[in-house]
């Protein structure tokens, strides 16, 4: 449990930033018991506020939670089963894949799984269905490391989730093409409680791509997500997430999506995870991302990129947690901000007692593309073992006018030159996706956002 700072008077409780650490809520309880416990928390808690000493606050006071509906069974928001949202077909690449599951609002509308993989024991289905058909398996892992009661929206997710995604890759299986999990919001008034549980069996190898997408619409919606991935001994996973709740082609409507999500990846003995979330848009986004090496020999590469625009607010808390040693870690994030957007990135390296011979490094690079945009990057290190190495570094930059002039003398106009710089800034991470269709999506989205911010970037240049 995080420490909670209680202040007298009109201040609400504000959560600080802590690693999840320790066991999750699951702990032998049934799904029904967990839902019941979460409901109690939901009913007795207020919308959360996160505060970093003095200068940073994320609060949800502008969110009208009571006006939203979950869109699950029995709700009035209708989602036709079998109909894949347009934003999904428009955005996702047409490429070979191992399987795909699509949820719109609170309902899973599409599930597909390669027949051969199904025969070899892969499970890809809604989490609801997993609790029916593979109850023992689902219950063993569900909420194993995720809490359900730190704040109202986390509790809401645990109490109310419908649909959901469940992936199980059995021992020793190597899957070439990616599994795709898609959460889409097609209209306003939706509270989407997204719940993903994925397990990589011993020595399995696979790719998992999550997409979080919104259609153009006007009004509020909420995505409160809980994601957990457990990699058993020797498993290897390349996990990527493309999140964009504010499509660049929007006009004139503005989706106002709040995204409050917690994601946990547990890396087992000699297992490996390469994780890259691309957080590309959302009215207010708060992400707790935790990658934990839980067993000796585990290794990980924690990458991430973000791009904020207009008046977006992004709050990322990324944790590189080492519970045992020897273990390795490498955290590298890059972010850019335009408009009047604000982004705060805190990267925490936490090395628990006994996690000897852990070696990890954290770097965060950010770029401000407009005078009113702001990026705060806060690296922190919490080390409770003595035979370890942990360090951090980073840069904060603006557009390099010398580089822009250089490119202009080669015939590129200013917006094209800016695009080259920003794309070049992100490119080392994008290239690490080592998946061309996915790389293209991320590149295109960043290009689209830059094009939308063109006037803003131009104004910045002339103001200096």
């Amino acid at each position, binding site marked *: 449990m995080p420490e909670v700072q209680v202040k007298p008077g009109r201040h609400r409780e504000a959560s600080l930033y802590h690693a999840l650490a320790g066991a999750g809520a699951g702990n032998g309880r049934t799904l029904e018991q967990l839902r019941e416990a979460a409901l109690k928390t939901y009913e007795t808690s207020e919308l959360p506020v996160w505060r970093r000493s003095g200068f940073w606050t994320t609060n949800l006071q502008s969110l009208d939670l009571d006006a939203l509906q979950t869109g699950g069974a029995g709700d009035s928001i209708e989602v036709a089963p079998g109909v894949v949202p347009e934003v999904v077909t428009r955005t996702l690449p047409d490429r070979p894949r191992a399987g795909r599951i699509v949820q719109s609002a609170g309902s899973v509308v599409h599930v597909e799984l390669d027949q051969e993989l199904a025969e070899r024991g892969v499970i890809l289905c809604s989490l609801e269905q997993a609790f029916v058909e593979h109850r023992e398996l689902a219950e063993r892992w569900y909420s194993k490391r995720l809490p359900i009661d730190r704040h109202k929206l986390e509790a809401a997710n645990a109490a109310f989730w419908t649909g959901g995604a469940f992936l199980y890759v059995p021992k020793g299986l190597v899957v070439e093409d990616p599994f795709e999990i898609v959460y889409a919001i097609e209209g306003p008034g939706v509270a989407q409680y997204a719940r993903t549980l994925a397990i990589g069996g011993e020595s399995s190898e696979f790719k998992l791509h999550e997409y979080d997408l919104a259609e153009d619409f006007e009004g509020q919606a909420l995505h409160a997500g809980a994601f957990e991935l457990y990699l058993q001994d020797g498993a290897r996973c390349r996990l990527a997430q493309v999140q964009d709740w504010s499509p660049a082609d929007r006009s004139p409507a503005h989706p106002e999506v709040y995204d409050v999500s917690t994601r946990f990846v547990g890396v087992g003995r000699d297992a490996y995870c390469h994780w890259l979330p691309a957080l590309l848009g959302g009215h207010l986004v708060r992400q707790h991302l935790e990658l934990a090496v839980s067993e000796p020999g585990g290794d990980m590469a924690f990458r991430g990129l973000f791009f904020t625009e207009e008046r977006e607010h992004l709050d990322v808390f990324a944790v590189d947690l080492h519970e045992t040693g020897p273990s390795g870690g490498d955290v590298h994030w890059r972010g850019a901000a335009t408009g009047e957007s604000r982004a705060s990135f805190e990267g925490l390296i936490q090395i628990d007692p006994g996690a000897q011979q852990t070696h990890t490094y954290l770097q965060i690079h950010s770029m401000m593309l407009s005078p009113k945009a702001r990026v705060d990057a806060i690296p922190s290190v919490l080390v409770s073992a003595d035979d370890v190495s942990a360090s951090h570094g980073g840069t904060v930059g603006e557009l390099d006018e010398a580089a822009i002039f250089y490119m*202009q003398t080669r015939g*590129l106009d200013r917006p094209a030159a800016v695009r*080259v710089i920003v794309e070049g800034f992100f490119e080392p991470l994008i290239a690490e996706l080592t998946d061309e269709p996915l790389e293209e999506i991320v590149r295109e989205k960043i290009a689209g956002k830059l094009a939308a911010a063109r006037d803003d970037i131009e104004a910045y240049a002339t103001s200096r």
Partner: protein
Amino acid sequence: MADLEIRDLHVRIEEREILKGVDLDISRGEVHALMGPNGSGKSTLANTLLGHPSYEITEGTIVFKGEDITEAEPHERAKAGLFLAFQYPVSIPGVSVANFLRMAINAKRDGDPIQVKEFRTQLQHAIELLDVDKAFTSRHLNDGFSGGEKKRAEILQMAMLAPDVAILDETDSGLDIDALRTVAEGVQKLHEEQGLGALIITHYQRILHYIKPQFVHILMDGRIVLQGGVELVERLEREGYDQIRQEVGARA
């Protein structure tokens, strides 16, 4: 009428006048050398010709191929056929030399992108001309390049973009003799093969042992004080800038 006509050019940077009335004509097929001591305004002229935003033109005009480009944006000048090889090329991380070249060529072609095959052929030709390794073109532009590699990359871009007039700003500085020879021979070949017009800006004489200019101009304190043929280079080598300065000063 010359392709590039510079008339009475006055330029200031942060309230300080650097160029105090420069006149210069350069045409395709001509090689000019602009020499001068440090601080004489050589790099200011180079940057001003390409429209660097920090340099303010207070008087005078720049006309290129009949168009007044005094106020034009840098990329418009480039598209018209001017090129600047930088003294200190900037690194562009994340973009390979080849990709950057293709972008630059396509920017110039205005909506008619070059075919992959044609691009490859051109690139191959330029690579051979400048004696660079093919792997060079897949490295990020100027990122971690040695001084010599940066200058070769400048000339490679020049070869690919085929400008009418190129300004080479101290391209010889910081080069060892082998790199200098390669770069100079590259410029010479482009001059011979493509009819490139060049303004070679240099402090020293050594690059001019490899490229023979037809016209030599000596810039001091923001003005061109002496003009002549290649014999001026030899004189400078014998006498140095100080003696020329004294003579010009005495004359003025």
